[in-house]
């Protein structure tokens, strides 16, 4: 119970700020880098990092660093069970369709080169 209420406190604190609510709304639409978020909300990189840090602490956002870019996405912990399931399901299809894009591009190329030979 104590743990639960301290998590709630963290969530409420995270949501008490208009910028952070805006960031969540933005991440609901699409994943974004900290740089992109800073630009979008007219803030310094350092300022945005702090906001994202608060959201991350509350489990509302997760971040992953690939190369030099840190990408933020909505944290599954912050979603209710059904939304979390749908988001996981969407990520599976999204990964699958990225591969399908490659197969389709190959087939298109083949078709074009066959067309040229004729």
């Amino acid at each position, binding site marked *: 119970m104590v743990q639960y209420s301290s998590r709630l406190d963290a969530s409420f604190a995270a949501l008490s700020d208009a910028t952070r609510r805006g960031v969540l709304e933005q991440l609901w639409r*699409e994943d974004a880098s900290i740089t992109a978020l800073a630009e979008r909300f007219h803030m310094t990189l350092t300022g945005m990092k702090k906001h994202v840090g608060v959201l991350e602490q509350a489990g509302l956002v997760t971040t992953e660093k690939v190369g030099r870019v840190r990408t933020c996405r909505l944290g599954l912990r912050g979603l209710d*069970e059904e939304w979390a399931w749908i988001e996981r399901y969407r990520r599976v299809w999204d990964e699958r369709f990225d591969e399908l*894009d490659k*197969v389709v591009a190959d087939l298109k190329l083949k078709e074009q080169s066959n067309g040229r030979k004729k």
Partner: protein
Amino acid sequence: MVERSEPASAKNPTTVQRTDREVIVTRTFDAPARIVFEAWTRPELFKRWWVPKSIGLALLSLEQDVRVGGGYRLVFDLGDSKTMAFFGKYVEVTPPSRLAWTNEESEDGTVTTVTFEEKDGRTHLTLTEAYPTREALDRNIGSAEGLPEQFEQLDALLATLG
């Protein structure tokens, strides 16, 4: 109704929404419908994209007899010499615009329908997974509750495999 999309800048977004007893996935592909349809119906192409790499499951075998009444069967390696099979029958095959199959490994008996709509050389794909009842879909969604995150991810994958 819950809807989630990811309009990333470079690639086409994948959206998922839930209705009463369906889960609907949409995505656009930059190719004519006959090409996208081919990638769904030729085993050597299908196996190149169907299994997400992040899951680390290996596809042991794949059979696809793509005609009405024809069967399919996918067998996955779960490690420790355990396997898992997904199977069913094609109930609609209309190249290059429509494909539907049953999922007979699950007790729910879902039916998956894929439509391919071509416009200006691009294909808008809609995949609908229909459950017999709202309760059956609710149950499936609820089944990941309380599992560690990697199993939750697997659970979501299993819901899409057959």
